[in-house]
């Protein structure tokens, strides 16, 4: 009798442990993927302060911001980024460091250049891989400020704007001109402006996150076709009575939150879907992002229409599907 009870107790313990483990796994998986934020100086600020390089692009001279030079030479910028990081960390939302990201990229590039196999072969990396490595953050916080003088007094005008790195949409901004001062230097005034404006800025970020949790994450899906692909298809290929692009649109209608998306452009080779609101969890309760959603679409096309699809990851908010080959 004692042994039976003991065994039952052991079984119960095992069950309770398994249930607890499952619950922990469920809670852990139920977290939405956290966007990464990074502060960068705005193009306007970089150009006004001479931190840019000139690049020839199709016969035109284009000014491109030089973030590395700005970080090395502007103490004000470093101070502003440190202050913003401090305030965001206080809200349990630490920022990605622009300086560290640049350093890591350079370090990795250097390591890759020096890595060779025993046979003398270099690492295989497409130019696209290198470009993809640079796009690391999901929300860009663009910062700019300017000192204004009113006779002996001076003040600081300040703008901080958050933009979705994939959709390019503005998430929110805070801007204003601080109180004029006779004695405080520009760095102190800038710090004051950041501290005073941060709550308003975070309120807008909070609105964005709440909206995302209520009506889904907004992503961009680009669909392209490999030229002369082996499957011999393009977006106007008909399956039954419907063109492939319409089949994809029907799938999006069914699988987006409240059928929210818009077809920005489509041709036989390209289709761009913007404002695609995807659910933050899949049917199994796992957090998904653009990549997960695009993989579901790729699976549907592969399974139901036998179309080979290559899915390219572009972060939490953008996915590219290339049809025809892997």
């Amino acid at each position: 009798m004692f042994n039976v009870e003991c065994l039952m107790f052991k079984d119960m313990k095992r069950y309770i442990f398994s249930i607890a483990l499952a619950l922990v796994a469920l809670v852990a998986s139920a977290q939405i993927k956290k966007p990464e934020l990074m502060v960068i100086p705005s193009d306007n600020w970089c150009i006004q302060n001479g931190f840019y390089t000139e690049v020839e692009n199709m016969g035109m001279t284009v000014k491109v911001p030089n973030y590395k030079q700005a970080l090395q030479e502007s103490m004000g910028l470093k101070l502003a980024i440190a202050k913003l990081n401090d305030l965001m960390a206080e809200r349990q939302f630490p920022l990605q460091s622009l300086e560290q990201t640049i350093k890591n990229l350079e370090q990795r590039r250097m390591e890759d250049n020096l890595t060779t196999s025993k046979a003398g072969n270099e690492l295989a990396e497409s130019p696209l891989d290198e470009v993809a490595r640079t796009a690391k953050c999901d929300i860009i916080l663009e910062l700019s400020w300017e000192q204004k003088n009113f006779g002996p007094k001076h003040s600081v005008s300040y703008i901080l704007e958050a933009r979705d790195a994939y959709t390019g949409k503005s998430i929110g901004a805070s801007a204003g001109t601080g109180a004029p001062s006779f004695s405080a230097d520009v760095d102190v005034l800038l710090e004051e402006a950041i501290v005073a404006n941060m709550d308003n800025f975070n309120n807008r970020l909070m609105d964005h996150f709440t909206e995302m949790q209520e009506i889904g994450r907004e992503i961009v899906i680009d669909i392209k076709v490999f030229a002369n692909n082996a499957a011999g298809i393009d977006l106007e290929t008909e399956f039954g009575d419907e063109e492939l692009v319409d089949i994809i649109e029907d799938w999006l209608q069914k699988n987006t939150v409240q059928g929210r998306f818009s077809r920005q452009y489509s041709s036989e080779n390209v289709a761009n879907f913007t404002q695609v609101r995807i659910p933050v969890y899949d049917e199994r309760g796992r957090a998904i992002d653009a990549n997960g959603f695009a993989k579901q679409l790729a699976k549907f096309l592969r399974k139901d229409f036998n179309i080979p699809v290559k899915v390219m990851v572009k972060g939490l908010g953008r996915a590219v599907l290339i049809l025809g080959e892997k």
Partner: protein
Amino acid sequence: MHMKKFLLPLLVLVACVSTSCDAVRQKKANKDTNEYRYEIECGGNAIQGTYLVKVWSYSRTPSIAENQCRKNAVHGVIFKGYGGGQGCVSQRPMANNPGVETQFEDYFKSFFATGGEFQKYASIVGGTTDVVKVGKEYKVGVLVSVRKDDLRKALEAAGVIRRLNAGF
């Protein structure tokens, strides 16, 4: 001898009347707070983690209790927010959802009770009282420093407002 007999009850009566008057005044002041009958404006640039606000409260006597000014300041930061201008930055109310006051009625009842938790988050900046007579009342303006970061953390911990990283 006779005087002594009358004096004691008279003193007791005066004490009772004054206590009940205080209680009535306190009740009236609390009612004003609950009905948002106060004004809040930016009081200037504050140090990190605080707001400096000027709170205008209404009273029949100009000596409105300091406690009520602090209560109004914290109430204003949570539910009202304030405008900016002249180098000041306007702030939205901490509670974004207007229904939160009724949804968490019990919490706020004890939070704003006399001697309640609100006291921890506000302090009067001394020597800055302004008094204006408006009809039969006085409008009393006091500069109050509100520890908004600590206040926000307390409200987040109580589930009254959402954390910035909630859900992630």
